[in-house]
């Protein structure tokens, strides 16, 4: 694999990790949604480039799905939901932003330490993609556990899926069937979550999940 192709793939994969960090840095709702659109855009570019160098045309379809659905349709829908629900625009964080970012760096280091020796026999491209994909996955999880707002947790969940797409394309040979079934299950999950969000909002006037605590029965 020539240097240029490798460098561009590295650019996109590293860029995905960077955008995951930018997701962690945001403290406003619209910023999070726009950043997620950027996240999906970068992953679709990464997949398209993989399609080009691996000469695997079916990956172009994956890239197109990621671009249209995740970078355009879902952010637009989320913007509408935010306006309709009238959710207030700042996101409460559990721990400070600085500490979250430090934890994020630790997670990236951890994924690299874990992944590089395991994939030592694979090609350089696969090594990089898997290490960065694991980082994106962990960063998405970190976002889910460090935010109190349900919408940002949903975004964290979807960024995990982007990481999985990167891993799958990097490992060379993800059949279209797998991609469609994974996307479909994510879609179902999102619809269910969306329904619940509306119900919660109707009932409690807020989507801060902390508020749900008071209504749990049998507190110790």
């Amino acid at each position, binding site marked *: 694999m020539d*240097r240029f192709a490798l*460098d561009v793939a590295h*650019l996109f994969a*590293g*860029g995905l*990790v960077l955008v995951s960090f930018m997701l962690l840095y945001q403290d406003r709702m619209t910023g999070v949604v726009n950043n997620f659109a950027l996240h999906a855009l970068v992953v679709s570019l990464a997949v398209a480039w993989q399609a080009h160098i691996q000469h695997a045309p079916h990956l172009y379809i994956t890239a197109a799905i990621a671009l249209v659905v995740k970078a355009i349709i879902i952010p637009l829908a989320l913007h509408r939901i935010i306006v309709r629900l009238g959710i207030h625009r700042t996101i409460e964080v559990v721990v400070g932003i*600085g500490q979250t*970012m430090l934890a994020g760096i630790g997670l990236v*280091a951890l994924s690299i330490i874990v992944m590089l020796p395991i994939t030592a026999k694979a090609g350089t491209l696969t090594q990089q993609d898997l290490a960065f994909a694991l980082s994106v996955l962990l960063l998405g999880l970190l976002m889910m556990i460090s935010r109190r707002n349900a919408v940002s947790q949903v975004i964290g969940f979807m960024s995990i899926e982007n990481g999985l797409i990167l891993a799958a394309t990097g490992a060379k040979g993800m059949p279209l069937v797998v991609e469609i079934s994974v996307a479909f299950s994510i879609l179902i999950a999102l619809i269910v979550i969306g329904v619940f969000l509306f119900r919660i909002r109707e009932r409690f006037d807020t989507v801060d999940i902390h508020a749900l605590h008071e209504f749990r029965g049998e507190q110790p």
Partner: protein
Amino acid sequence: MAIALNLLVQFAQMVLVLALAPLFAGFVRKTKAHLLRRQGPPLIQPYREVLRLLRKDVVLADSASWVFRVAPYLVFATTWVAAALVPTFATGLVFSYAADVIALVALLGSARFMLALAGLDVGTSFGGIGSSREMLIASLAEPAMLMVVFTLSLLAGSTQLSSIAEFMQASDVGLRFSLALALIGLIMVAIAENARIPIDNPATHLELTMVHEAMILEYSGRHLALIEVAAFLKLLLYVSVIACVFFPWGIAVSGQGPVAYLAGAGVYLLKLAAGGLLLAVFETAIAKMRVFRVPDFLGAALMLGFLATLLLFVTMAR
């Protein structure tokens, strides 16, 4: 004979840097004015300001000590020496091996130390505000700077600016994402250290927005002229570092002869103009942050540096 010539070239760089610094500041001001659809002051206005200050009396507060009087000279000397050690039109000059990037940052730290002490010397609350905020910003900017240096030294195998510039120019570094991250981190640190928007406003005298201006509030006359020139030199230093490390094309190597030096100087002026334009656009485009958002800003620079190092480790693990 050869050593006398080398010394001459080094001295020429020192003079060049001193002469260009106010012009650069004037260029940035003029560009900002044009972006705001104003005429703006003439390009040589900073020179006129310095000359005007030199002609004025010095008014010293009753409680000022010798530290207050000596500090401007030390600040000026250390900043000038640091600026003279950065490759501008040629790398590998005689004195450039006396200090590497870490020593340069520490030299600027010496200047900042003296200035912060001068701020506390007169015993007013403005000086205290400036000094304490300046030390906070410095304490956050130094780790970020170190991470950028680490990334560069990982790639180039050296912390000497001359060696790094020659490495970036000569070898095929390729498209490196880590270098882009390091560049952004370095730009953020440079903005913080030079008291530009969004960290500090160099054109204001309101206490809520002052860091650098608060420390030098009591200075007047020739002392203030020295400190202003030192501030211009510091800005020129950071732009030169960014130019020679990340955009080293056109830099001459020491010993290539006067034609190469002149060509290098011409390219350097072009790079300065581009840097000044970008700085003016950036400053006009965003607003100043409140002081307690500065840690977030510099923390982001630190994270970018860390990330650059980690990503570089991945690509170099072959």
